[in-house]
């Protein structure tokens, strides 16, 4: 359903994602290291991804002291 403008935009995001993934993978030195590549988010810009999926807020919480109400 996407227009050609939208298609081109997403195609550019996809191309950018491949560069980003290559950079991220350059740090993957040991066999168990994380790998990065194409997935369902590769045609989103980082901003679109952030706005849509990274919407969790961290509430300020106390440092763990070893004591909880339960123990």
């Amino acid at each position, binding site marked *: 359903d996407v227009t050609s403008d939208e298609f081109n935009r997403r195609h550019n995001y996809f191309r950018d*994602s491949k560069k*980003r*993934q290559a950079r*991220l993978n350059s*740090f*993957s030195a*040991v066999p*168990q*290291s*994380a*790998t*990065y*590549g194409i*997935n*369902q*988010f*590769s045609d*989103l810009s*980082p901003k679109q*991804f*952030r706005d*849509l*999926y*990274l*919407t*969790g*807020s*961290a*509430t300020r*919480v*106390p*440092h*763990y002291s*070893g004591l*909880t*109400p*339960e123990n």
Partner: protein
Amino acid sequence: LPAKFDWRDKAVVAPVQNQQACGSCWAFGTVGAIQSVHAIGGFTLEQLSVQQVLDCSIQNSGCNGGSAVWALDWLKQTKVKLVPQSDYRYKAKTGICHYFSQSHDGVAVKNFTAHDFEGQEAAMMGELVQNGPLVAVVDAISWQDYLGGIIQHHCSSHRSNHAVLVVGYDATGHIPHWIVQNSWGTAWGDEGYVYIKIGSNVCGIADSVAAVFL
């Protein structure tokens, strides 16, 4: 502490969910912890309503985002029972809050704790083993491209933006790591899971961690 511990082995972790195009990670994390702790208490593992938390926890902003700690605080203060998912289905849209009578089947939150475990991830492991899966808020910017493996770099602490469910850890290999359930479907990561190195607060995994008591 055991070198490896995974609540999935006890069949108390529900399958990976997909939040779709809705910023509801905070609700998925919250509900994931509650339903697991309920199952650990001897009840049948049952999926509870994420949509109820999304619609009714008005201190949060529905699909525009929220905080798991605020959601837990709302559940504790109001004593609202979380109803089964089958009674209040997920729509990936914020909607009007539906109310159920107190006699309706559901699970209420008695208490919760929320702590910063930075520098004390061993204590966080203890909390996980003792209480059940934990809700954590992480920096997930690099997760846009994640395929699998253990994240050790490119993930900052103190910039949290995404709520997840920590279901276990594995310290038997070269890289001890957390086992984390995400809510972006099974096509993402390792069947919906991501692994994060233990010990240096990678992705801010220890910055804000909540445990639930029912």
